[in-house]
């Protein structure tokens, strides 16, 4: 899946999460008819966070890895719940102070707060790989929240349910768009899948022209270790997962440093036996320790051919 396809589908995932959370919120408000206003908002923001957190993690892992780990999805849900609840609680004093004098602004702030905090929580998943992703997820959520809030405040009088549902959908789209757009905007290089001798990798990435965005200052582990082997609670340990039998669990590291990009053998596969078994070649030459990458370099990892493209050629 290309970067723009990922952006498109992840935005739709956010929209779906928003729609599902609206349905659940509407059902709850039908059952619980006597609760304080701030509790209603807290419940809404929490449900929104839970759905966006869970679905974003699930779909992101589905497209980048080979399976969806329930514990990561649960982590996403929990982080979404925490962020949503925090937004609901932070909103209380804002409503108390501003509610009577500027109701529209207060409403807008509530939506922006929910969107930005949920986005922030989700962005934390990629903080190890790409710190800017946190800021972008936050900004995406903020924009999505503002849009959702504007729709809610503007359309509520004429189309009540639709306005709230659209508000939720746009907040979801905004957050997921922000989370996904960050690496696309900030990418300094792209690793493109060309083809693979392993049918699993070819089947997964060949038709979709898979691309991985690479950013200066970050390091990405290339490997075939299945996510269920990972010990992390929230994110995969392998950033560029390729299901190729010729690729070691942790095969190589691709890193951007001081304006240059390098590919190096991962310490776990740097011994003689691993070097013999797991190929790592750049421009046809075997990489023993590390190798600087240049624009349009061909990389052979295991039986998979990749192409590195950068716009920062020095």
């Amino acid at each position: 899946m290309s970067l723009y396809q990922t952006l498109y589908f992840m935005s739709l995932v956010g929209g779906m999460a928003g729609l599902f959370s609206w349905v659940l919120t509407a059902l709850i408000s039908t059952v619980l008819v006597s609760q304080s206003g701030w509790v209603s908002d807290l419940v809404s923001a929490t449900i929104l966070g839970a759905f966006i957190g869970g679905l974003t993690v699930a779909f992101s892992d589905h497209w980048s890895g080979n399976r969806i780990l329930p514990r990561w999805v649960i982590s996403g849900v929990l982080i979404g719940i925490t962020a949503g609840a925090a937004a609901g609680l932070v909103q209380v004093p804002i409503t108390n102070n501003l509610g009577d004098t500027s109701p529209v602004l207060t409403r807008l702030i509530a939506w922006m707060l929910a969107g930005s905090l949920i986005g922030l929580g989700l962005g934390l998943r990629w903080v190890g790989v790409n710190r800017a992703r946190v800021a972008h997820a936050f900004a995406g959520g903020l924009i999505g929240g503002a849009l959702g809030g504007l729709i809610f405040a503007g359309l509520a009088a004429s189309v009540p349910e639709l306005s709230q549902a659209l508000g939720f959908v746009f907040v979801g789209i905004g957050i997921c768009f922000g989370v996904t757009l960050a690496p696309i905007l900030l990418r300094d290089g792209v690793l493109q899948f060309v083809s693979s001798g392993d049918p699993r990798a070819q089947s997964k990435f060949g038709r979709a022209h898979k691309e991985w965005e690479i950013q200066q200052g970050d390091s990405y582990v290339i490997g075939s270790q299945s996510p269920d082997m990972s010990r992390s609670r929230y994110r995969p340990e392998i950033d560029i997962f390729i299901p190729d039998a010729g690729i070691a669990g942790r095969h190589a590291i691709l890193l951007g440093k001081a304006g240059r990009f390098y590919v190096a053998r991962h310490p776990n596969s740097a011994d003689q036996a691993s070097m013999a078994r797991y190929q790592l070649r750049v421009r046809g030459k075997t990489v023993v320790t590390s190798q600087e990458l240049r624009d349009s370099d061909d990389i052979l990892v295991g039986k998979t051919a990749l192409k590195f493209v950068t716009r920062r050629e020095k």
Partner: protein
Amino acid sequence: MISPVRLAISTLLMLCAASAVAQSGHMDFADRIRLVNCDPSTSKPCFRAAFNSVDAQGSPLDLNLPPGKDLRRQMTIKLDNQEIDPFFAVSQTGQTKAARGRVALILVDISGSMNIKLPSGSTRFETAQQALEQFLEGFDSSVDRVAIVPFESHNVAPQIQAAQFATNKTGALLQIQALTTPQPRNNTALYSAVVLGLQVLAEQAQTVPGSPETLLIVMTDGKNEVYKGDDPGLLDGPAGLQQAANAVQASGTQVIGIGFGDPAGIDTAALRQLSTKLYMADNLDRLKQAFSFARTLQTNRIVATFAAPVDDRSSLEGRTYHVSASLTLPNGQHLESGEKIWSAPEMSVPSFDGKCDTDELKAALQIVPSSTNWLTMLRPVLVFFGLGTLLLVLWFWVPRLVWPEQYIGTFTTQGGGSMRWTDRSQVWSKSRAAARPSRPAPPGFETRKDGVAPPRVPGDRTVVQPDFSKSRLQKRGDERDY
């Protein structure tokens, strides 16, 4: 002897004065505007507003109000710029049977300064104890719940949270007698006491059926003062005052502040910020009067219930109403209220604040048109399916237009299985297919000239080579060393 001219002038002046006093009367909101559920009489959401009629000084006015039906006709509610006639209105007094419960919490300052003696010879504290009894006049065991709690700067939270709401006058009197005598080391945690008092009051109101009318009375002789040695985390300074004032505003509860003692020693500005009504007293009679006013404000209320100008609760989402009311008295005098805002939650559908009582339900049944609207029930379903369909189209159909090369379909083969085909699939004739250039078969799969594949032997290995045809690796074949 008084001349007729002087008599006429003095009569005219008295009339003018009386008129001026009457005109200065107005209505104050006695409670927050509540969204109430009048189902099954009507599915329309309804609002209930409670008012006190007061004079310019904030003292309760004793008005000769018309009975229920007439009162309803004399009242007009303004919702933004829309005038609405309430379907129910009642003037509650201490003598009439209350429709809803009444919950009151009285916070009594027992800081060291409450031991100061008044000219009467009693201390402020003793005087307060005497005056408090005034509030219990007309105590109605069936609706009233009152707690009298002391506060200073030690054990503030445990003391207020342990408030026991008496359900009879004897119990309340015992609480007054049991008030702890002020100690010299006691300071005044006024701001924290107000916040905690509101919480306790809200919790107590939850336990009373319906939506009871709540009242918080804060009596103090000084200002917020907390020092080292007092409870940790007590609110203080402008931030503490703001926090407490926000809590008062958010609760919508009627808070009556009573400043007792030397006005110079009382932080009236803070007390005014913390209360919806403020009375000052410097002797027993004035203090009794203040408590009497407080009691009257709790018992004497004009309650009006009116239907919202929408069909269902969901239609209220995202709305903010500026509500005000006017009442025409039998003598032609108009009482106007200030403006109060009702606002739906920021992100969700507003919830009900309570249910209509029996009288309100009866009135609603007669007056409010039934609004069973199928669209109201269908609307959320339509929204879900509409948006769901849109998302499905965006997920499954639009990408096929944008990235057609990546989408393949399936068709059923003659054998009953299914095969996949791309959008760019074409049916080729046999000769064209034979002429189609193809990549050489991998080792072991080569076709002999006679069209028959050579038999595989046990030593044969199948090796699948990566396809570098689309990569630059192919172009740089000469340079590399595989």
